[in-house]
């Protein structure tokens, strides 16, 4: 199974060794990682599988992602509503108390509506002061027709978090799936790795420590 190119990718493999390699190729299990002379111990194979499952499970992006502008769009709408503005301008309340009462009112109102962002809202609690800072930018984006899911809140900034999908004319050809694109890439990366390593390992040319005196260097 060795290569038979001439110099510089010459093969040191003879026809007999090729035949032996072919026999091994056709008779071994587990993609050739458990080789004919020394099988990889089952616990090690188990550990490798466990590693892959753990890698996917522990990095699953439930926590730690930045909030998108979309999850606060309803907050902004409600903040600008007459009821909330009334609370915010209530002269009988202190500034902080008015903020807290208004935010409580917004959150209570939001509970009456089903939203795909409920979980993310719980993770990214927002105060009225923060909402005031990002609200004008979110309104502006809504007016321009932008997809708020492609924008991320970083402190007081609403930043475009999309790097690939928005075309110059504004059409969106692919959206960030809820489980994260980096995740999809990682799955493909792993599958391609497995395929490449199995092919590489199976096609390795004959190896021995013994010198080959037929080749003059």
């Amino acid at each position, binding site marked *: 199974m060795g290569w038979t190119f001439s110099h510089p990718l010459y093969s*040191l493999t003879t026809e007999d060794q090729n035949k032996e390699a072919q026999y091994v190729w056709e008779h071994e299990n587990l993609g*050739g*990682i458990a*080789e004919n*002379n*020394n099988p*990889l*111990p089952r616990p*090690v194979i188990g*550990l*490798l599988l466990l*590693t*892959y499952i*753990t*890698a*996917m499970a*522990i*990095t699953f*992006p439930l*926590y*730690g*992602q*930045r909030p998108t502008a979309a999850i606060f769009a309803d907050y902004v709408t409600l903040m600008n509503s007459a009821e909330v503005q009334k609370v915010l301008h209530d002269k009988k309340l202190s500034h902080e108390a008015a903020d807290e009462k208004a935010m409580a009112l917004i959150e209570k109102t939001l509970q009456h509506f089903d939203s795909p962002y409920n979980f993310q809202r719980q993770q990214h609690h927002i105060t009225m002061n923060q909402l005031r800072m990002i609200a004008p930018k979110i309104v502006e984006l809504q007016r321009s027709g932008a997809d708020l899911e492609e924008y*991320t809140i*970083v402190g007081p900034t609403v*930043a475009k*978090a999309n*790097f690939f999908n928005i075309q110059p004319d504004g059409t969106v050809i692919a959206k*960030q799936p809820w489980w*994260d*694109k*980096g*995740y999809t*890439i*990682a799955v493909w*990366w*792993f599958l391609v*790795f497995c395929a*490449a*390593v199995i092919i*590489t*390992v199976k096609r*390795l*040319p*004959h*190896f*021995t*420590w*013994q*010198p*080959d*005196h037929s*080749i003059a*260097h």
Partner: protein
Amino acid sequence: MLKYLFANEEDIPQGSTALFFAFSSIAWFIIGTGLGSFNAAKLAFPDFYHNVYWLQFGHMRQVHVHAVIFGWIAMAFAASMMYITPTLGNTKLWSEKLGVWNCLLYNVGLCLALALLWSGMTSGREYSDHIWPIDLYIAFVMVVPWALNVWMTVLNRRTQGIYTTNWFFAACMFMTIIVFLIGNLPEFFHLTGLNEAYMTWWFAHNILGLLITPVAAAITYYIIPKITGNPLYSHRVGHLHFWSIVVFYSTPAAHHLMSSPLPEWLKSFASVEGVLILVPAIAYVSNILLTMQGKWSMFIENIEVKFTITGVFLAIPLNMQGGFQQTRAINWYIHGTGWIVAHAHLALLGFSTFAEAAAVYYGIQVLLRRKLYSSSLANFHFWMLLIGFSLYWVSMTIAGLIQGAAKIYEVPYIDVVIAEHPYMIVRWLGGTMVFLGNIVWMFNMYMTATAGDHVPEGRQPAEVAYTR
């Protein structure tokens, strides 16, 4: 050394390059750990030498980091490659003359680079601290000739196929040159912002992942089969290790920047790849430990095996930490704390140093055909290194957990400084033990070179009895 610079290639004894690199590396190890001990003293006792501006921590830290990485770690790698590559290829080193020049200019360049860092001329980027003229010198005068010698020796081999160790040596030199030149782009072209941050950590991560840990592993792939006499348990698992290093270790740079505004998908991808470094780790550690079958007594009796296997054992917590500490949930807690400092020392002072020390011990003995001068001093060195390192690692890990808790619960900074004081003292003690152990090592190796018993041709140094 100087007499070989202008000698004919045939007149330079084989192994000269490896020996010069080996002794240089020990000298730089003493300097580097001495600087480390000095810096640790500053952290433990902040009033110590506080009037001397050019000895302050901000000046000295980078000098320590680069003295150990470029001085000790890299030169011990060069020493190992310069004798292991030809041995595994059943041939001579391609050019001893190039190697001798390489070693001289390496030492000169490193002195210059450290002097500039010390004087405050830095790029300001962690791990790629050098200014661009020094970067170019490192790439083209220090690393390319070294890589050329390794590649040409592999090409001129007289064996059938290439052994795992030489796969790693040749590929890691190639990847290092690429990583170094691309990683320093912010310095060459003045990139700023996220590009700069990402490049900086892409460089810092890959210099660890594609040079330091795989070459240390490659050394153990040679030392363990060679000294125990057992063939490597599985050549193919070695390949699984090699290719998974290339695929999983070259991609997780973004996990150093989990709190930055990098795109989330990049962080997710990096984080998955970060956990998948356990694939090469498991393949590697199980391969080496299975190779030890039936020879475990040598872990006690033989100094090189003792160093190597200790290094392999340290690779287990290293990879467990490395795999998981970068995930979002854990990184949130330990990012920017002493935990990371402990982890970095586990990689450099733990795993790689122990593997390399074995290669330098073994290399000096076989190249000079002289037996180690004192087994007791070598054991003393081993324990000073292991206990010193363990004190350092444990104390900095605890300090890191305290800092993490304080960060999350917003404890006032000065209270954290007070809480960490005892651990800073233990850190200094541990680092100083390593430094003192290395002085003993240099003495032992000097005496080996001048007064060690001769080892007959065809025998292992460990097979020869002490006659004194």
